[in-house]
């Protein structure tokens, strides 16, 4: 259950849970609004009906459809209706049956249908999700791209080349992008993490890169996903899981490996520390923002840590190594769970 509906990445932060349910062959019902207003915009207008509602990204429903298909497990949706102010409707503590049914009736009916294996109702609910998946409300993503094997191998060796591929992306939008761009520009692969092992000898790292470049699993290309977030679990682990099932496993086609680029994170602590070059960062902010650079810079560096170290055992590390064949960090590669079996 969630009160939120987001376009963009945030709508996918719960996708990991839907994937986990499907992988366990457990039916899943997502209960949330299809669209809702932003709380902070309620103060900007007299009539909330005039506010622009944010919609749940259709990528979420496409992902549910993929999960349903792959695991033959119902991945369903029940709508949480919104009230007159565009926020999800709640019922008072002492509510009537009618009030309860208005808000939660469809959800309860769906749960009953699953529990009692009401085939007709489940089929209808699955069809509804399939319909929602066709109502695309997303634009072409700048952070997701198809790579040939050769392109992927080149970027693994020289991640800084990502700047050329994502030329316009860093020049607009939130100031935090400059923090990430600096990390991309400074990227240099010198270490490989495989499970708990660190491979640092130059010739060994080079050999692994050579072997990766000719890996049969990469023959048909890869899906690249760039994340400019700091070290945090959400929403990008959900995005990765969603891409894994939605983009990497097209119906009737071979699975494509997912290659994550995560430049604000390093394998080695020394690399993360070296990234914090305030002189270089302030220069980039001055160039973009001119006299207003200080405010944007302060906003960007206010995060708990702008550059961090890959930490095993965290949710994001578990999710990324599960769904990504490889993770390209600022100073090295982290092999996904499957690949790390080849280089223990």
């Amino acid at each position, binding site marked *: 259950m969630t009160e939120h509906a987001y376009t963009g990445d945030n709508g996918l932060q719960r996708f990991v849970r839907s994937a986990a349910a499907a992988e366990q062959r457990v039916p899943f019902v997502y209960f949330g609004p299809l669209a809702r207003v932003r*709380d902070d915009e309620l103060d900007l207008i007299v009539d909330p009906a005039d506010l622009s509602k944010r919609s749940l990204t259709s990528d979420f429903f496409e992902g549910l459809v993929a999960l349903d298909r792959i695991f033959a497990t119902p991945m369903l949706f029940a709508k949480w209706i919104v009230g007159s102010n565009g926020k999800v409707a709640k019922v008072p503590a002492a509510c009537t049956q009618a009030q309860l049914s208005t808000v939660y009736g469809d959800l309860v009916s769906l749960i009953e249908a699953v529990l009692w294996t009401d085939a007709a109702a489940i089929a209808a609910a699955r069809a509804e999700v399939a319909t929602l998946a066709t109502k695309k409300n997303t634009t072409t993503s700048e952070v997701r791209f198809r790579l040939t094997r050769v392109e992927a191998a080149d970027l693994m060796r020289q991640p800084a080349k990502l700047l050329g591929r994502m030329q316009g992306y860093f020049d607009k939008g939130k100031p935090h992008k400059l923090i990430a761009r600096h990390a991309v520009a400074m990227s240099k692969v010198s270490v490989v993490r495989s499970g708990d092992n660190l491979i640092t000898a130059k010739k060994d790292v080079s050999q692994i890169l050579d072997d990766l470049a000719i890996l049969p699993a990469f023959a048909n290309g890869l899906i690249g996903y760039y994340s400019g977030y700091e070290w945090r679990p959400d929403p990008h682990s959900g995005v990765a899981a969603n891409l894994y099932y939605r983009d990497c496993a097209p119906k009737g086609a071979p699975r494509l490996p997912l290659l994550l680029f995560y430049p604000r994170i390093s394998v080695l602590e020394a690399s993360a520390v070296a990234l914090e070059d305030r002189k270089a960062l302030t220069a980039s902010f001055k160039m973009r923002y001119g006299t207003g650079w200080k405010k944007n810079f302060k906003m960007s560096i206010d995060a708990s840590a702008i550059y961090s170290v890959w930490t095993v055992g965290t949710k994001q590390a578990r999710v990324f190594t599960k769904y990504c064949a490889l993770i390209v960090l600022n100073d090295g590669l982290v092999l996904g769970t499957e690949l790390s079996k080849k280089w223990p």
Partner: protein
Amino acid sequence: MTAETRTYNRLHAALRARQGITLIGGHPPSAKSYDTDLIRIPNPSDPSARWHVDLVFCSKETLYLCELKGALSESGDDITKLAEIIRAHPLPALVPLIKRRVPTVTIPSTLTRIVKAVGVESADATAPSDVLVIEVPDDLTVSLLGFRDAGILADLT
């Protein structure tokens, strides 16, 4: 279950049972509330941040902004926060803001004041003179300490 969660559950139940009290909004420790709306109050000093108040309730004349903690000795920052909220949003501004977020709750037009309150499981410190302290040490007991005038006593006892 944490002490704060117990405090929330007890006070929430006590207020629901109390005649003349309207429960407007709640922000429990779990951040999940199914019978009240989460009321997020804009912080003019920091547009990216919003204040949450653990329990917002009212009588005919008094709007109570109540923060919850396990122990009163832990409430210093909460009391400061409540004062900041009231400074930024005095009653005439705060009521419409709340109404926009909880359109299904009838907030009386007869409100005349805001009272800062802290709900605790254990009142282990001296209660501030300008803050109402509601101690709920168990499921049955509700004790009022600190700022208690006739109106508050009529509302909550």
